């Protein structure tokens, strides 16, 4: 996977989220994928051991993302009904490691979220670290780690905004 191809892969994930193409978004993830957003433990240091320290989200297994999508679509979550609108912008994509059947990337992201209930907007921003692996004939996300820089959560922050 070249850097251009990696960037296109990340852009596609972002677009699926912003278009609410949930099934296509989930299909980018390996069944055993890790989805991790560490919490911060000081002004400068985020947590590093999800089994002993807090994360905002830590899931092992796509199944958990499927459950999150189920909840978002259920119509029974006040935070998700109506769903906020989002636009992701992904930049500064770099390949940080390369193996025969895997690449690791870093990228910068912003997500503009428009809360249709309150009619106001918020910008979240941070860094991505993806591990993308070739599984059979497909490139799939084996791990997505998100560093959220502005981590005081304004009411609602869900998987579609990362």
């Amino acid at each position: 996977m070249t850097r251009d191809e990696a960037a296109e892969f990340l852009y596609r994930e972002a677009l699926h989220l912003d278009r609410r193409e949930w099934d296509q978004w989930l299909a980018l993830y390996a069944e055993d994928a890790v989805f991790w957003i560490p919490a911060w433990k000081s002004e400068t240091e985020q947590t590093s051991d999800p089994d002993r320290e807090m994360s905002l989200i830590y899931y092992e297994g796509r199944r958990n993302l499927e459950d999150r999508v189920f909840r978002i679509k259920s119509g029974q979550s006040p935070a998700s009904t109506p769903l906020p609108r989002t636009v992701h912008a992904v930049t500064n994509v770099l390949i940080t490691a390369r193996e025969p059947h895997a690449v690791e990337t870093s990228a910068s992201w912003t997500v503009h979220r428009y809360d249709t209930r309150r009619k106001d907007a918020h910008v979240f921003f941070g860094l991505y670290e993806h591990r993308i692996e070739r599984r059979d004939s497909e490139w799939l996300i084996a791990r997505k780690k998100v560093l959220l820089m502005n981590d005081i959560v304004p009411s609602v922050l869900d998987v579609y905004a990362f």
Partner: protein
Amino acid sequence: MNEMRTIETISPIDSMIDAMIDDRPADGVFRLDRRMFTDPELFEAERRHVFEGGWVFLGLACEIPEAHDYFTRQIGRHPIVVMRDGSGSLGGFINSCPHKGSRVCQLAHGNSRLHVCPYHSWTFDSAGKNRGVKWKAAGAHAPAFDELSHDLRRLPAFAEHNGFLFGSLVGDVPPLSEHLGEAAKLLDLITEESPDGIELVPGSVAFTYHGNWKLQLENASDAYHFTSTHPSYLKVLELRAERPDDATPRSVWESDQPWSEEAAGVQGGSYSFDHGHVLNWGLIPASPAHPMYDRVEALGERLGPGKRDWIFNMRNLTVFPNMQIVESAASQLRIIRPIAPDMTEVTTWCFAPRGESAAARRQRIRSYEDFFNPTGMATPDDAACYENCQAGHASGLVGPLQGYSRGIAATKLGGNVFSDKLGMTPAANVLADSQLCDETLYHNYYRAWRTRMRAGVAREALA
């Protein structure tokens, strides 16, 4: 002159305090004026009198175990630093340099023998003592300067109960033991979850919402909202039960559903304590979904069956006005901070018994994130409802609220067979079946609110 003075001190707030709460126990009436959630002047007054005018929770002693450790928090609008000095004593201070007012400690927590103000280098030790006024000798001060204390200002009241630290910006408060009263036994129960006490899981998470601080205060005590606000979470638990998978987080509610109509008999209830503290609780049997299940026998041997059973029960404790401890899906400590009539910040931590197994700790953290985090599957739904309430209250001038009525006819003074197991005598209790969902415990908040507000107004009138 005396007459003028009287007129000046009858502020609009003074007359508003009683008008906000229509509290007539003999008639079975408790109604709340919606301006409690919206009025800017009332908000300014309650920030002074409720938060800056009495005991508030600051943090845990276990956050600063070593000499010279410190953490920073706020009381109302004021930055506070809590430090452990070189001899191991804890102290609470206004985190503001007496010279020009800059915050002295900038970080959430740390360890330092000396704290140097970043603005003009006035220096303080971990007991708050001034250890240096830069270029003092050349300063050509008048003698009057030397008569002042240059130390960090000590909180007028600061005390610890069993590792829980409280402070007050006013000195005329009852002893902490009197403020906590019988509710202290619920704090003690938490520390008994391990023979070595509790600790915070590293990493705190904070969220804000566009709503009044009392919406968070009430919600932790609100058994009535659970199946209405969180059905999506409960549906996810059903999905997980249908498709079991080791990768999914556990929840105490995955098998136990005390709200169902089939759940017969007493399922929980509420306790109200003096000074505004309340507990909303539910019977939850020990099950593998609970991170302490591997210790159920050891807990029974160490504490007896009564306390052991209470440790597995759902317990939502509020220590008025700013501390909540929620033990259900996992174990959460919250500090509520009012920012504006329609803006509140809630800072949260997962706490845990020291020495639990790595598997139990992992299970606890996963359950916590899944349910409690503002990026999880329950808290955002609460926050959205707070914001919907605030939007609904709008001006506050559209009639009183009716949400303080359930349980009035079931309220009993004193304790009951369950509080007896903790040797605890609350001021009042309600025993609830699966769907009673007591709302009288909010009365206790607002009666304490009224007491603090009246005391604050009286204090200012004397000043």
